């Protein structure tokens, strides 16, 4: 078995072994490779100063993804081509179009966030769908904080850079593909060090077997949560098992009836597929973490950690999604809402892991609305998240209703009393008023840094009103501020 990981750092082939499992890419770059252009601003994936580019093959094309190096583990780079800010100038030493635009537009002041911005901007520049649309640029840069400029010159720089059609990486495309192909197919790998072990299984069978032998090991997919256990709680992780190395878990496929999202599928990859069947879930996913976080974090990881404030679970509970769990060779399915038993407690047995999430395709009459409420629109953890899925019959009577909330209880949870107050009734003002009252009995939310109990209760009821305004009122009125579209939802 392979005892090392391999990747390219710029033009350099790197083969690394014998490192502690929790070694982060940022520490490795700065301390081992003395690449100090990549900065540490927060060490928790919120500021983006440590953004680097990870390039991998997807469907025979190169995908350029920005990720936060501070909460990526080194072993996650296996099989990748990475670039840091030091790699951006072309071979003659000329600045990359993005760098030049940032200089021209006065896009840097103190300069500390700048390398991270530049990397996010290059990732966006390299993305096939890049456009000068400001809303899209905002999304691309939502994971980078700047305290000096107020962002305006950075957005201008992004637009300027996009006017330059090609960069020197275009000429290197074949070279990079060739390099990445030498890593394929990825063989399984085990990194051993005095501090612990990382297992990078290549197949799901191998993963199941390693986990059965090591039930205390930590499963890690994108590390957007586990990374903080290391950088903030200072936990040691003596044995990590990688989800991301298993090729078959990256399956994202669609049938006539459902969408299958493998445990290794990131939010970025799943985004458009989910948005296609549930547009409003897509709108919430646009605001989950940031581009960097969604490039690393997986849909199933967001469920697996059982957080009461994860944005994915309420979306999927309302959509009646199914979770596929696996232990050894045995798989079982359960409605996702049943996975969450209590705070910190999920229906996942020892040695069992999530293999996939299956979202049924909605009935064409399903009214599905999802509202993420946070102090800041982008890259913030929800104070609460309300998701409403409803079908009415021809007489306007509610025949199906499912309401799920995040941030209102110790787990993502359905609003059963509210559902009962609505089901079988006409979706009118009287029903709305009953529902607004019922929702107060569904939840006993906490007060914390994000909001008070009062706010959560008040807004939970008000989201019913918003849902009503969007689905039951004949006149179209503005109901949302998130997003830069003139009417985020009409």
């Amino acid at each position, binding site marked *: 078995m392979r005892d090392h990981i391999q990747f390219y750092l710029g033009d350099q082939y790197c083969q690394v072994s014998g490192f502690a499992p929790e070694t982060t890419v940022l520490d490795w770059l700065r301390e081992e490779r003395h690449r100090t252009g990549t900065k540490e601003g*927060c060490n928790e994936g919120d500021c983006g100063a440590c953004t680097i580019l990870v390039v991998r093959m997807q469907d025979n094309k190169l995908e350029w993804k920005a990720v936060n190096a501070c909460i990526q583990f080194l072993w996650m780079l296996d099989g990748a081509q990475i670039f840091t*800010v030091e790699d951006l100038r072309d071979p003659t030493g000329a600045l990359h179009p993005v760098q030049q635009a940032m200089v021209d537009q006065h896009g840097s002041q*103190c*300069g*500390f*966030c700048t390398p991270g911005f530049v990397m996010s901007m290059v990732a966006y520049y390299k993305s096939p769908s890049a456009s000068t649309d400001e809303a899209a640029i905002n999304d691309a840069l939502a994971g980078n904080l700047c305290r000096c*400029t107020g962002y305006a010159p950075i957005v201008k720089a992004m637009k300027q850079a996009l006017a330059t059609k090609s960069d020197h990486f275009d000429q290197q495309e074949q070279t990079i593909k060739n390099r990445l192909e030498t890593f394929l197919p990825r063989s399984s790998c085990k990194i051993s060090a005095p501090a612990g072990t990382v297992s990078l299984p290549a197949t799901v069978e191998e993963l199941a077997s390693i986990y059965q032998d090591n039930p205390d090991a930590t499963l890690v997919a994108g590390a957007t949560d586990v990374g903080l256990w290391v950088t903030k709680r200072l936990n040691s992780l003596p044995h990590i098992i990688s989800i991301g190395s298993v090729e078959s878990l990256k399956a994202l496929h669609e049938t006539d009836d459902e969408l299958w999202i493998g445990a290794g599928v990131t939010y970025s990859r799943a985004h458009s597929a989910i948005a296609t069947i549930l547009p409003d879930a897509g709108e919430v996913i646009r605001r989950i973490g940031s581009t960097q976080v969604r490039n690393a974090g997986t849909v199933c990881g967001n469920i697996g950690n059982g957080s009461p404030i994860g944005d994915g679970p309420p979306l999927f509970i309302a959509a009646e999604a199914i979770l596929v769990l696996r232990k050894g060779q045995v798989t079982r399915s359960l409605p996702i809402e049943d996975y969450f038993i209590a705070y910190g407690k999920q229906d996942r047995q020892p040695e069992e892991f999530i293999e996939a999430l299956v979202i049924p395709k909605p009935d064409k009459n399903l009214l599905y609305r999802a509202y993420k409420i946070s102090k800041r629109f*982008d890259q913030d953890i929800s104070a609460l998240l309300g998701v409403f899925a409803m079908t009415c019959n021809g007489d306007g009577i509610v025949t199906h209703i499912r309401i799920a909330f995040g941030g209102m209880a110790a787990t993502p949870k359905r609003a059963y009393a509210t559902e009962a107050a609505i089901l079988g009734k006409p979706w009118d003002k009287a029903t709305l008023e009953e529902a607004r009252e019922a929702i107060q009995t569904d939840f006993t939310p906490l007060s914390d840094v994000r909001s008070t109990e009062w706010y959560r209760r008040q*807004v939970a009821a008000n989201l019913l009103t918003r849902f009503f305004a969007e689905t039951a009122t004949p006149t179209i009125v503005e109901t949302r501020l998130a997003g830069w579209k003139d009417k985020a939802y009409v």
Partner: protein
Amino acid sequence: MSDVSISLKKPENDQPHLPVVKGGATKSLKHESARMHVSGSATYIDDLPEPQGLVHVVPGLSTKAHARIISLNLDAVKALPGVIGVLTHRDVPGHNQVSPVGKDDEPLLAEDEVFYYGQPIFAVIAENRSIARKAARLAEIEYEDLPAVLNIAQARAAGSELVWRPLEMKRGDVDKGLAEAPRRLNGRITIGGQEHFYLEGQAALAQPGEEGEMRIWSSTQHPTETQHMVAHVLDRPSNLVTVEVRRMGGGFGGKETQANTPACLAALAANLTGRAAKIRLDRDDDMLMTGKRHDFVIDYDVGFTDKGDILAVDMTLAARCGWSADLSGPVIDRALFHADNAYFYPDVRFRSEPLKTNTQSNTAYRGFGGPQGIVAAERVIEEIAFATGLDPLDIRVRNTYGTGARDITPYHMTVEDSIAADIMTELAKRCDYRQRRSAVRERNKHSPYIKRGIALTPVKFGISFTATHYNQAGALVHVYTDGSVQVNHGGTEMGQGLHTKMVQIAMREFGLAEDRVRITATTTGKVPNTSATAASSGADLNGMAVLDAVTKIKGRLEEFASKHWNVNQEQVRFLPDGVHVGDKVVSFPELTKAAYFDRVSLSANGFYKTPKISWNPNTGRGRPFYYFAYGAACAEVAIDLLTGETRIERVDILHDAGQSLNPAIDIGQIEGGFVQGAGWLTMEELVWDDKGQLRTHAPSTYKIPACSDRPRIFNVQLLKQSPNKEETIFRSKAVGEPPFVHGVAVLQAISDALASIADYKICPKLDAPATPECILRTAEKLTAQKPDHNF
């Protein structure tokens, strides 16, 4: 108020118009480090090559807001492999004090009592940072809880002591003025604090040298103070300590005094081990340890006429100062200096309450208390507008300082150049304020959930340190024989473009291109006894000092050239195409080389002290400010009455930077300052729990504006043809802090949107920060107050 356009006269003693070299002062030039910033080659403290044998330092923090330390057991800390030692207050050879104002109320490391949650008690020295961080959590500390006072209300209730002498400013007879006023109202506004969130956290590297020398690289806005602190903590004369800073990754006031503790800890570790020592705070530790913008509770009582003319204002400004004085005294004073904003109050009294609390010691933050005073002043305007039913803009314009009469501030300084009304009127015209205000109100009638609001607010900001002795600066300029120039000065670069402006001054004066003038790191070894780069004064003070140094060298070169080429000294001029000596043009290198051979000194220091200023806090009288900087902002926002969410739709700013030294950089300061100010008043919320622990101690919980939070339409313009009336560097005006205040327009616009709930009849009395929750609460209150509420 008529629609006057702004026409300011150019000062008569302005310089003759000579060609200015490309990028020279008053022209736009890219930031001197821009190419390095975008390439990752601009170095910050943690990027410096690490000296051999470097040790790492991590502080251990108090987990109590106020307690006696019964025992401190560090055995487990020391036992962790890789730990070299642990510093406590007993390891301080000199004074265990870092109070920047000499109050001796701020121990570097706690002694037998802790005063806030997050106070450094000890510091681990280890072979690497990871080990040091782990070890710092292994201390066993036994505390005996003492009563903790956490906020302004508790401090008032407990009769908490003041960290500084309270200040009273008064003019006229406010009690009589209030009593006799035809209209009178009073109220209270609560204004939250703010975390600096400089992207580069606090960091320092200390390297011991020969015979007690200590060299410090520190991310500090105040190298001289850091030098003094390290010297007195180590019990050494200042001449053994050199502090250097090339650039900071942001400061905003948060590294004016707060950089001293990290630097002192690194120096102590270096002193103890004889090895170089580095400290770089983790973001959470940084936010837990360091002071922030002061939060305020301001009570106001105002008398006015039916037309909205202000007659008398009485205000009490109480601030949470934290556990020690730090800079709270001058911060609160500056809040008082700005509680008039741009308005003349015929009878006035301002009083301060700088309250001691068991929280982080609040400190300098862009605006230094001024913005809080201005927020209160604008609330008063708003109250009068609702009381009289007039447009707040009309109340603003009619109450601005006049010239000739109505020109005396509450601190008895004459306002000589009041242009606030002109700027507001001009901006209102440019951005269609009146028409848009009507349109917003019309639109709100048909939009039950999303309401829009608009407001236009001015800023008048006093420029100079109110501590008069701080208003001095030094510079050191070298010209080498090849004609290349090195500029050094006492100011520090934190992103504001100060170094760029200093280079531009030398470029303009010598007629040299950018690549011939190099700025070097700021170091106490080159320019001593400097002031903090703060109070927006960096370019004003250091620019004049650089000009002084350059002028000295030019004078020597002119004298030499006139003799050498036998022309009058007046015929020697430094222009972009070379040095004109009579009819002849010689290159700058040619001239400097010839001068060198003639034994002319090509190096000079420069010095500057601000004229005209004085301030006596005992009498509350003086001229604390050399001049005022002005501007106005118009903000349009949308709010969601169901959730309290907000979005900034459009912002227009017209700002007075005098004759800007660098318009591109100044616009950057205005745009960035605005967004930071808007963040302070909207989404940035500091939350402490009832144990005094700051719960918003990382960007996951403390939200500064992100890219999409900038205004959707954002127009920023500099006021044209407005050279400073005072003789500042090329007639420019300071631009660091004043634009921060433009964020106030957002708070006022949100309030305007909320006012729609009660048909614009009731002042919403919106507090700050206007988080979604705060907005929703205010909306609910207004709905309840509304006479016929059926929302």
